[in-house]
């Protein structure tokens, strides 16, 4: 009888601890669900330099997702070169899973946009757990890389200087025949999560 109460306590601690670990693992891997439930076109506009569109997206998770889209008209296809997070300075913006973005598509000189264009949302990308800017992101990238490209091992560094700083990737192991440039491309690839999107809308510029 004397031994039963401590045993029960130990079991309870184990169950509680494992439950916490399970729940945190679920929330950490939520990024991989990568499901988009809706996209809404808020506005669009064209000036001589840019076509600008605003989209609101139900994101797959609370990661810092960024949308990449294509605008096609006639034989021309343009991808967005800048993305602005709407309300980026609002407190708690990253707690919202529906966020709005302004996408800019650059127009070439004398490139005229008349009639209809099709805006296609191609993909969403986010840094894996903060990407190479954070320790957690580096660790997650190392784990991901070990699965996709076994034998490629790396660390990162960031050093402060006067007025700023810089950093990079250092390889500690590379399979024979693999160049650092190739391996670096794999590291970047492993440091991102993507969500494929199948959404498009017609934009009318005839008015």
């Amino acid at each position, binding site marked *: 009888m004397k*031994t039963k109460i*401590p*045993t029960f306590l*130990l*079991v309870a*601690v*184990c169950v*509680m*601890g*494992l439950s*916490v*670990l399970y729940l*945190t693992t679920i929330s950490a891997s939520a990024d991989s669900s990568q499901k988009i439930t809706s996209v809404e076109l808020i506005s669009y506009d064209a000036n001589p330099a840019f076509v600008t569109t605003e989209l609101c997206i139900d994101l797959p998770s609370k990661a*810092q997702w*960024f949308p990449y889209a294509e605008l096609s008209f006639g034989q021309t296809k343009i991808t967005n*070169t*800048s*993305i*602005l*997070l709407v309300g*980026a*300075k609002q*407190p708690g*913006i*990253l707690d919202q899973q529906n966020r709005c973005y302004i996408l*800019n598509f*650059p127009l070439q000189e004398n490139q005229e946009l008349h009639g209809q264009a099709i805006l296609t949302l191609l993909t969403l990308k986010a840094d894996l757990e*903060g990407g*190479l*800017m*954070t320790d*957690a992101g580096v660790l997650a990238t190392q784990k991901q890389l070990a699965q996709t490209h076994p034998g490629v091992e790396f660390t990162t560094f*960031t050093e*402060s*200087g006067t*007025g*700023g*700083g*810089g*950093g*990079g*990737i250092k390889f500690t192991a590379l399979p024979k025949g693999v160049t*650092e*440039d190739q391996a*670096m*491309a794999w590291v*970047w690839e492993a440091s991102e999560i993507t969500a494929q999107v199948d959404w498009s809308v017609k934009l009318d510029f005839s008015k």
Partner: protein
Amino acid sequence: MNRLIWKRRLPLIFLSLLTIIIGFGRTRSVQAVDPPCTGSGCNYVDPYNTVCWSNAVIAGSAVASDVITTNRNMYSGDCIANYSYTKYSTYTYLAAETVGVYTYEAPQTYVWVYNTMWDGSGVVCTRGHKGTAPGVYNISTSQICR
């Protein structure tokens, strides 16, 4: 008899300690940290290794014509300050600019660079540059104002 009981319990004790240690580690990692500065107090302050870096929002992003050089306008709500972050796919000469304020021109090749912060209570514009030597840049992103 006592030895047998302890032998049976050993895995449980080990598991308990492990979960407590891991749980403690996770709790520590989410603890709030005081910002080193806020608003104009952050002007020219290095964000690296502070909460201004770790909790920053990517307020905007722009890619240059080479489709690789990328600049991010980073905003820290804790510090109410922005900074510029430029990255490339491999080692090269990079610069991170806060437009009208300051450009950090890296003296050596890096894969990413950043500059010191600027008061984020107003609109702050950033852009990035890539070149062949410090101060010699042939690729630039557009400005991102947030």
